[in-house]
Structure formats: structure tokens, C-alpha cells
């Protein structure tokens, strides 16, 4: 162990706990946000947990274990009001979907990331609605259009937020 004064910034080792748990904690916190503020009369709250999950994946290719979608999705189901299993299923599917896209794409940039996330959000919210409707609801698809739009417009900010957390993570 070298004395602190002689340590260069390049030798700085961030704590493993932080590196491993911060993405997980961030997604878990984001999953809990939709229940916090108001008693909603219409579905408007974007699926922040899912957006954060996808953002981490877009930022770091190998950040999640293959089963992370199922585990974090199950946690998200506690809070989202969807039936248990919805996010567990759809997050895994989204994770595999992004992995497949990664094999096809040669390069990625801001717009492509956004578009990928947007497709993911449309698919995720539509399929979640489909499952909800199969299990007793009768909501028209048009009713979630505002929610989908809000989510897509917020996605770049979530990615940016994830970036800030990422910087903090390695500090």
C-alpha cells in the first residue's frame, strides 16, 4: 500500500461495492418512483425503472447479467401496478432484444440509442397494456399514447442521468 500522497489519479481504485450496486440501486429507485407522487386517474407516469434499466444497457454493453432483466423486472412489478411477471418477462425480452440489435449494428450514436429505446418503450408499454387487458382491463391503446410520448421524450434525460450516476460510480 502506497502512502496517499504518492497515489496518482490513474491508480485510484473505486470501491467494488459502488461499481456493482450503484446501477442496481439506481434502477430499483427509479422503479419505485412511479408510485410516489400522486394518485393517478390516468396512466401517464413513464416506466422510469425500465428506462433506467435500458439506459444502463445502452451505456455499458456488459453491465447486466443475462438474468438481470428478470430479477430487476420482478422488483419493478412490486411497484408498477402491472401484474406480477409483466416486467419480469418484458425486461428480459427487451434485454435480449438489445443484445440482438447489438450484433446487427456496426456503430451506435445518440440518435440510434434514442430510437432503440423508443422502440423498446413502445413495445414495452403496448405489451404491458396487452397483458393488463388480457387479465381484466379494457383500456384502449390510444389511452396510453400520452404516456408513450412522455416516456420517449424523457428517455434522453434518463440516459444523461444514468451517465452522471456512472461518473459518480467510478469516483
Amino acid at each position, binding site marked *: 500500500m502506497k502512502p496517499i500522497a504518492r497515489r496518482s489519479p490513474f491508480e485510484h481504485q473505486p470501491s467494488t461495492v459502488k461499481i456493482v450496486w450503484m446501477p442496481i440501486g439506481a434502477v430499483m429507485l427509479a422503479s*419505485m418512483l*412511479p*408510485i*410516489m*407522487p*400522486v*394518485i*393517478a*386517474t*390516468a*396512466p*401517464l*407516469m*413513464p*416506466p422510469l425503472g425500465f428506462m433506467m434499466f435500458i439506459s444502463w444497457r*445502452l*451505456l*455499458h*454493453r*456488459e453491465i447486466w*447479467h*443475462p*438474468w438481470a*432483466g*428478470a*430479477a430487476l*423486472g*420482478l422488483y419493478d412489478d*412490486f411497484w*408498477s*401496478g*402491472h*401484474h*406480477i*411477471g*409483466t416486467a*419480469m*418477462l418484458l425486461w*428480459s*425480452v427487451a*434485454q*435480449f432484444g438489445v443484445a440482438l440489435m*447489438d*450484433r446487427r449494428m456496426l*456503430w*451506435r*450514436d445518440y440518435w440510434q440509442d434514442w430510437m432503440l429505446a423508443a422502440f423498446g418503450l413502445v413495445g414495452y408499454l403496448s405489451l*404491458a*397494456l396487452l*397483458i*393488463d*387487458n*388480457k*387479465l*381484466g*382491463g*379494457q*383500456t*384502449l391503446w390510444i*389511452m396510453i399514447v400520452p404516456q408513450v410520448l412522455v416516456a420517449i421524450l424523457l428517455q434522453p434525460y434518463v440516459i444523461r442521468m444514468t451517465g452522471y450516476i456512472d461518473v459518480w460510480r467510478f469516483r
Partner: protein
Amino acid sequence: MAPPASRRPGFSRRAQYGLFVGYIIAVLGVLVAALLLVTARLDPKGHNALRSFLGDVASPFSSAGRSVVRGVSGVGAGVAAYVDAGSKNRALKAEVGANRTKLIDGQNARLENARLKALLRIAQSETGPMIAARLISSTGESSRRYATIDKGTLQGVAVGEPVRAPDGLVGHIVQTGAISAQILLISDTGNVVPVKRTTDGVAAFMSGDGDGLLAVHLVSAGAGAIKKGDVFVTSGAGGIYPPGIPVGVVTVVDRDGARARAFADPGTFDFALVQKPFIVPLPEPTEIKAKPKAKKKRAVAE
């Protein structure tokens, strides 16, 4: 840009097997999720037990969170109110005018109602002790409209009990945990409330429209068109909801039908009352008593 993927985690057998096992767990997770959803369809009771347990776990968090965030959401509501102040003002003025006449109608109706009830000796529904509960959270993300209250089976809340606020009907309990319970709000698309129009008692159904409004369906189409401003209260038909709780006022009438705004906006009140489910009174038992054969035989024997 993300670094290129390494599909193999190096030459280490251990790492390769680790990845493989990871994928197996992932696939198992997907299968378990699918199974959970299928159980929700086939065995809603078991599925609900799981959900209510999770509701219990979540309730302290959301309870604390709601009190913190109330201030913030208040700011949002204030801004929103300012934005559409003009149109709201006009609408409110019109509503005040309409309400004034309605108030007089209502007073008349109440007097008449009291007189008729006394006449018919209709037993008031025994609502029993009511439980006051705080609404602590709702599911803003899902297309279903559930809300959570901070009272559960320990406080005597049971599945199927109607929930109302001072303004009007909120919904009914669909699952209970020990210290929390979930309400299916009337704005949910899967919730159907039997109602009647206050002016003439025309029977109708209301169900959620998905966007916070309620769709109104008359039981018989020829029973008189729905007009803007028609007020609907619960009719008590089919049980659960006691009769006479205000439900909604019709705000939109177009080709697709009529839609109503619920009186009780779950975002604006903190306390809701959980009542005992209304049981439709059975017909007079005297006629039934005359029927059994055993009694007749005994009468013959005597």
C-alpha cells in the same frame, strides 16, 4: 460508443460456464414470469395473495413518500390550474348556474325521498362501522387503476367492501394485506358500477374509460337520452355499493356515448371510508314460509 462485445468471456472455462448458467437462469426467469402471468389468469386468488404481501411491504415506503411529495405535486397542480384558468372559469360559472337549480331539485328530492321511505318503511342499509383510511399510492404507470390504502385485514378491511370519499364513490377493495389493501378505482376499465340518474332514476352502468373519465351506458337505450350535467348516483343494484352514493356528472356527450367526471378525484382527498358491502335486501320472508311441505303435513297431522 460502447466497446465491442466479447461474446466469449475469455478462455477461462469457469467464466464460460458462468455465462452459460447466467443465460439458463435468464430463460428460467422468463418462464417463471410467463407462469406468474398465467396464474394471474387461471388462479387470481393465489396471485392476489402474492400481490397483497408485496403491497404490505411497499406501504410504509409509499406512505412516507406520499407525504414528502405532496408539496411537490401541489405545485404541479397549481401551475396546471393557472394554465387553463380561463376555460375552467367559464366552465365553473356554467356549472354554478346548473348547480343552483340542481340544488333546489335535490332538496325537493330529499324531502320526497324521506316521505316515500317512511311510507314504504324501507330499511336503511346497515353500513356498520366504517373504517377511515389514507390513500397512499396508486399505479400511475399501469393501465389498470389501483390505489393502495394504509389499512388492511388487521384493521378489519375485507375484499369486496366499497370505498367512498366525502365527495363520492372511489371504488372497492380487491385485495387485502395485513396493513394495506388495494382498491380498484371506479376509473378502471374493468370496474362496472350500477348507477341511476338522480332526476328520474333511469338505470345505467358506469365503467372507467381509461383516461380518468367514466363511460355511461344506459341499461335500456330508449330510456331517455343522457344530457350534459346529468348526475348519477349508485343504485345499489347487485350489491357491493350502497345506493345513493354520488358517482359522477356527465361532462361529454358525443357520438361515442356519454362520459362522466367522477365526483371523487382520488388525487385530491387523503382519507377514504371503507364501508361494509351493501347486501340487497331479500324479499319479505312471509311468502316463503308458507311454501315448505313439512309444515303443511304437520298441520294435517294436527
